[in-house]
């Protein structure tokens, strides 16, 4: 009685494309922070250039979704998968942009000695990358429980961001000459914290996909 094998294969292939885009985004974030820590300006340039690929991939996958909607006229969970994918693409693309912002700050700071060793910002990056990876796994496996658990990790990013903010404030109050660099670091922390919010959106879409219900984490 089984039919629509072709369509099921297309939906699986779509998930693979989303995972591939997710891998690019994770790498961009990891490399942006690595460039910052290692003061590697070439790596920062590669992150900035690589964003074009992420943007193109977003549009390609979007077109795939649109064509599947037009040709296959999906309903129920098939339709929810396509709608959720379109939303997830937007969040992934935004995370890619955060990586570019980080790489640009790295270039702006290039040549300056850092006012303090970078500890919390690389930790935030590791947490954010892990969240992106696990959130996309939950998404393609349509696993709402896993999604809920990943979204819970956003609290760690929020806490680290608050900690970085407090610490930078003390440095800047002590020495106004550090304000310029301090503000740049503050933005870095803020973008990594925002990454967690985008991942949380992906987790919410996963619950929608699996259950048809909208939740807010």
């Amino acid at each position, binding site marked *: *009685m*089984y*039919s*629509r094998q072709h*369509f099921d294969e297309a939906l699986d292939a779509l998930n693979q494309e989303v995972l591939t885009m997710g891998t690019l985004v994770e790498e961009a974030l990891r490399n942006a922070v690595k460039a910052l820590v290692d003061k590697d300006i070439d790596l920062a340039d590669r992150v900035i250039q690589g964003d074009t690929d992420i943007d193109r991939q977003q549009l390609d996958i979007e077109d795939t979704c649109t064509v599947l909607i037009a040709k296959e*006229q*999906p*309903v*129920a*969970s*098939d*339709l*929810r998968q396509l709608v959720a994918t379109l939303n997830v693409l937007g969040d992934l693309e935004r995370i890619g942009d955060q990586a570019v912002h980080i790489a640009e700050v790295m270039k702006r700071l290039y040549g300056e000695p850092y006012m303090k060793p970078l500890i919390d910002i690389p930790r935030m990056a590791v947490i954010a990358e892990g969240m992106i990876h696990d959130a996309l796994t939950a998404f393609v496996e349509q696993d709402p429980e896993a999604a809920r658990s990943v979204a819970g990790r956003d609290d760690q990013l929020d806490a680290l961001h608050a900690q970085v903010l407090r610490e930078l404030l003390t440095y800047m109050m002590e020495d106004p000459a550090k304000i310029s660099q301090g503000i740049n670091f503050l933005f870095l922390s803020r973008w990594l914290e925002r990454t967690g919010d985008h991942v949380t959106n992906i987790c919410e879409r996963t619950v929608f996909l699996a*259950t*048809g*219900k909208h939740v807010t984490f």
Partner: protein
Amino acid sequence: MEEQPSKFRIKDLDLFYGDNQALKDVTLEVRSHRVTALIGPSGCGKSTFIRTLNRMNDLIDHVRITGDVLYEGVNIYADYDVIELRKRIGMVFQKPNPFPMSIYENIAYGPKIHGITSKSLLDDLVENSLKAAALWEEVSDRLHKPALGLSGGQQQRLCIARVLAVEPDVVLMDEPTSALDPISTSRIEELIFELKKKYTIIIVTHNMQQAGRVSDTTAFFLNGVVVEYGDTEKIFFNPEDSRTEAYISGRFG
């Protein structure tokens, strides 16, 4: 579900063709002035079900029915004059079946049988029915030409006009567009939107997109059982039953 008075209440309905049970314990309410779609694979009982609503199954031998079919609160299998019932509950079939007479006579036939003889009254009925079926403009200059000269889509709208001419309350449609091209199909669908203001409509369709487009409520039949019944939006967005999901998304049937 939005509150609407119910037009039909069907309770514990079983229907047998000889030893073969075609409907099993069907219980549902059809709301007034709404379009209810009946979907399901061939042989699932949806056409049998729609035919119980105006007792078309009476014409078939060895049919046995138990349970209640209440139309406006009255059990149509106990207390109803069948002729009156079928006047109140009209039916449009899969294949357009105009009578081999003129367009005018096709429409006037029913009202005449029900005793209307005044020429001006019949003229008005013919015009109003053809207008309500969105056919008037295409045929007003050839009312006395043979109905069989019309295109398939026009013939089907003529059949709808013929139903409307006896001033029914409910219109049953058994796959009304399955023999029509896409343009004719979409005209019938637009017509359904208009008709539901005045009538209660129940439509059997094999076309999922059509059920999604035209109906307010959908019932999914499988092997004579109503698997799921509810708002069309809910059925097509997030059905409760995995068999409903499999059927509407084309995984079986």
